[in-house]
């Protein structure tokens, strides 16, 4: 029987050298739901996606995907798990030497033995889902940022994955492209019966479509809940983040000695 939570993170700690980025983090990602991970830049949101994808190993704790502990799998095991995942990278990460069509066809050609005629139909179907069927002959350099993101999304869903991970899907997009991507995330999730994990710091968009949200700060989960619960939250960090206040629990100034000391040091 399929597990209720397709991805589970239990007591995870991760860091580089002596610096700990995550300390004892736990999260669950229920099947069929859209879950957002939010937090300031550099808090390790993308690293969580990389840990789920098995690109890096935790220092403690574990990440389970479909009941299997990711970092205990061998290379073959990790590759089998990754075939259940699709990932949209921050800047699309399209293969620049391949056309839009070939980019979307790439995972199909690598992992299946489907005839080329069927691959063509599937690719056009995926591109149609993101509204770019008419752009299938273009090269990645001929696409706008929003279009590239949509092509990358079509590629991410090429093999109908169970889990779709989005790394900052709205970064650097104009409002129209943002709304399109926003709508696609929800629509594709529901149409494919997939589970979506979105890393973002765009409050308005995440609150509009996510079923559940985790706030990450200082290496741990600072708050969690549905968008409705979080928008009413009185927690200082959540309040500062949601309302975009420049000072608060997350200080405006980076850690530094006293201003006076810094000034007079050079005198």
């Amino acid at each position, binding site marked *: 029987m399929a597990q209720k939570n397709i991805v589970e993170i239990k007591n995870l700690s991760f860091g580089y050298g002596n610096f700990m980025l995550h300390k004892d983090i736990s999260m669950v990602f229920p099947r069929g739901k859209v879950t957002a991970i939010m937090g300031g830049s550099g808090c390790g949101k993308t690293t969580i996606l990389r840990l789920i994808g098995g690109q890096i190993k935790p220092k403690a704790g574990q990440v389970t995907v479909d009941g299997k502990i990711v970092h205990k799998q061998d290379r073959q095991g990790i590759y089998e798990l990754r075939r259940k995942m699709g990932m949209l990278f921050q800047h699309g*990460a399209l293969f620049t030497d391949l056309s839009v069509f070939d980019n979307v066809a790439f995972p199909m050609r*690598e*992992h299946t033995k489907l005839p080329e005629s069927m691959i063509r139909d599937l690719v056009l179907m995926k591109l149609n889902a993101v509204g770019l069927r008419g752009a299938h002959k273009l090269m990645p350099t001929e696409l706008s940022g929003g279009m590239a993101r949509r092509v990358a999304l079509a590629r991410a869903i090429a093999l109908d994955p169970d889990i779709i991970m989005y790394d900052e899907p709205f970064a650097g997009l104009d409002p129209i492209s943002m709304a399109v991507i926003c709508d696609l995330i929800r629509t594709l999730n529901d149409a494919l019966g997939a589970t979506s994990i979105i890393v973002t710091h765009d409050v308005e968009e995440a609150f509009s479509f996510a079923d559940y949200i985790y706030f990450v700060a200082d290496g741990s989960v600072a708050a969690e809940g549905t968008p409705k619960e979080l928008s009413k939250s009185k927690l200082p960090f959540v309040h500062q983040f949601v309302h975009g206040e420049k000072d608060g629990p997350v200080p405006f100034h980076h850690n530094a000695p006293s201003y006076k000391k810094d000034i007079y040091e050079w005198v």
Partner: protein
Amino acid sequence: MNPIFKILSNIGNQVTSRIWRLGSATRLFCLTLIYSSESFRRIHLTIREIYFTGVMSLIIIVVSAFFVGMVLGLQGYYTLQKYGSSESIGVLVALALLRELGPVVTALLFAGRAGTAITAEIGLMKATEQLSAMEMMAISPIARIISPRFWAGVISMPILASIFSMVGVMGGYLVAVPIIGVDHGAFWSQMNVNVDFRIDVINGLIKSFVFGVACTIIALYEGYDAPPTAEGVSRATTRTVVTSSLTVLGLDFILTSFMMSN
């Protein structure tokens, strides 16, 4: 910190870092060999890379070879005529090209033309997360990206070196026979008699094969290991040329000593 201790510590760091990089490059080399069957299974990828690394390097190879051959012809003639053996110019040009200049200059040009292109391409693929994307699609970048480029370089280099030697001999002929007036028959017959296929031609090909392995794996490693920034890729590209050139010259000495000892 004590200055002497600081110097020793820096030297230690440099040595450790070099050894670490060598080990890392060796690991990549072994993985590339392990995944070689993948690149031959998808032979179109290797053929495409042979076009980019080999065929696209032809112009610089042919033009350089022609001039190197002409210079050899001139220099050789002025030296040999002092000893009354200007007819041996053909042998001198052929041996210099087949034994040394063909493999070595081709490898140096290859490192500058194709090696840098490979490093920059892979470094940029890394910086734009294309390699990560491939990994996340459960496709090994070593099988799909590194291995075909490696075999393309290894296959291209001996062919390019042969073309270099051939065009160089033509350049030498052009200077020696029509311009200087050395006897046409003497030029070719002396070459025919004194150039040994096993010793000169095959050894030259062995050298270029070894240089092909070295230059290509250095270019691939530097790109694969490059920090994913503009500065990182530019430094990696520079390191490709410097490391490849020094490696080729060092290997040439070692290989020549072994070949001469036989």
